[in-house]
């Protein structure tokens, strides 16, 4: 049988219509969660500050995202005079594209009746995540560069500097898990966590991955590319309307993706008590627990300085991650 796409160790091919149906379902579910996530974040941040958060639009403010999107859509998508037009338009599109691509490998459940509960089981799983995740940064860089504005360019430069400071540690943090499970495929990694979740033996890796995840998603305390205080949203300065909206959308999508990867790699993915059909629910619960951590940290920490992130990335996270990899390697070989 010829496969259009490289499949993992599952060694089976699904009918094309099943694949299409799966991708539609994943797309619809995630894009249904995103607006809820925005309102959940604002409400939670409010609660963290003794406030209520949005509660005017609809019951409990649940229709707030509709109002937000309605406002963004009705705004003019303007373009600065000295912007590079093609790149300026490409800027917000690339991150959306890469975010959606990364959704494909999130595992929602094991193979049942010949249908895998995941978009696709890529044999290079984690490498795919890194490859696709880095494309998002080209969007930020292009957007910042093409805007023709000082603030945007500074934001873009910052995001580039940020990228090189955390990406290495992020990869090394996951290396421990990969060595323990002996596979790059996310589905296999989750299967290997039937006994013990990797958050136990790989707690250092988990913490480093989450820290790097904050940087990957441009969230506080590492939101220097945006830095609304000093850079007026950095690379997003010159964007308005739905182009700005798609940058925001991407931020939340990246949070979901990073949470999903962390849940699959460290928290046992779909593993949980109960019948098999609960698997995707368990995955969602774990993802939302991590999303809560993202919001919690945002409500707590101030933005780090530029050099502090560099110091943290190169002087602390990288040696720690390397040490973690070494110790794991020795333990894996010995046992």
């Amino acid at each position, binding site marked *: 049988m010829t496969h259009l796409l490289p499949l993992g160790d599952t060694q089976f091919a699904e009918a094309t219509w099943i694949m299409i149906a799966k991708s539609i379902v994943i797309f619809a579910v995630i894009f249904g969660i995103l607006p809820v996530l925005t309102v959940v974040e604002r409400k939670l941040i*409010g*609660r963290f500050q*003794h*406030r209520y958060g949005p509660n005017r639009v609809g019951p409990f403010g649940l229709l707030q995202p509709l109002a937000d999107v309605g406002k963004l859509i009705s705004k003019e998508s303007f373009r600065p005079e000295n912007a590079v037009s093609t790149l300026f338009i490409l800027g917000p599109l690339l991150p959306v594209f890469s975010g959606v691509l990364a959704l494909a490998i999130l595992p929602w459940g094991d193979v049942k009746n010949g249908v895998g509960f995941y978009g696709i089981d890529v044999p290079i799983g984690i490498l795919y995540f890194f490859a696709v995740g880095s494309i998002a940064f080209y969007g930020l860089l292009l957007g910042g560069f093409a805007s023709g504005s000082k603030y945007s360019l500074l934001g873009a430069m910052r995001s580039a500097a940020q990228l090189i400071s955390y990406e290495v540690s992020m990869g090394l943090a996951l290396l421990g898990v990969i060595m323990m499970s002996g596979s790059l495929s996310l589905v296999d990694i989750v299967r290997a966590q039937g006994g013990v979740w990797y958050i136990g033996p790989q707690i250092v890796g988990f913490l480093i991955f989450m820290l790097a995840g904050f940087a990957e998603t441009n969230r506080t305390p590492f939101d220097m590319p945006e830095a609304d205080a000093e850079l007026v949203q950095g690379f997003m300065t010159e964007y308005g309307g739905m182009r700005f909206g798609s940058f925001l959308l991407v931020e939340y999508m990246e949070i979901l993706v990073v949470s999903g990867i962390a849940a699959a790699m460290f928290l046992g993915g779909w593993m949980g008590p109960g019948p098999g059909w609960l698997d995707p629910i368990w995955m969602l619960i774990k993802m939302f627990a991590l999303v809560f951590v993202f919001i*919690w940290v945002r409500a*707590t920490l101030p933005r780090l300085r530029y050099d502090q992130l560099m*110091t943290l990335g190169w*002087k602390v996270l990288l040696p720690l991650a390397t040490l973690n990899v070494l110790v794991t390697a020795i333990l894996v070989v010995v046992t």
Partner: protein
Amino acid sequence: MPDDVYVKAASYLDSIDVVEVQRGPEPGGVGGAYRAFGETLRGLKTTMSRLIEGPLTIEYPEEKTPVYPRFRGRHKLHRFEDTGLEKCVGCSLCAAACPADCIRVVAAENIPGERVSSGERYAAVYEINLSRCIFCGYCEIACPFDAITMGHDYEMADYDRTDLIFTKEMLLAEPIERTPLKSEGEATEGAL
């Protein structure tokens, strides 16, 4: 000359116990990272306790901030409860006391049989320009008959300045008690 100053300052410093400021480890490196990690956890604990405490917001248009009993809000004019006569005798002492010059009183003689106030005269015109009033309460203190007091209402915004000139009828009208009052215990406690 500056050297003298420095020497003096130095000797002063020697005479008192100089306590070295407690500093954490230098930022960067392992010590700094360890300390930062601990402090981060402390911060996370703080925000989590805020989440558990719940919101303190008073949702204003639906829910109003209670005022203290002596809060100086919008003025009220009073009548005698038994006879229904106005307490104000049109003496203009309030207008004289007013530092913002926002009260206008025009007095008139009471006609027997059609008495308006208990005294010889009454206020034919009594106007307070609330756009000028500074809510100092001097009018209340100046009044010999307790005819004018400061009420508790604080929602007086309007679209037109002329609407802010309150006439006698408006000030006499039975106030809609819209403003909640702090209870006895609340009044003695400090904020929060």
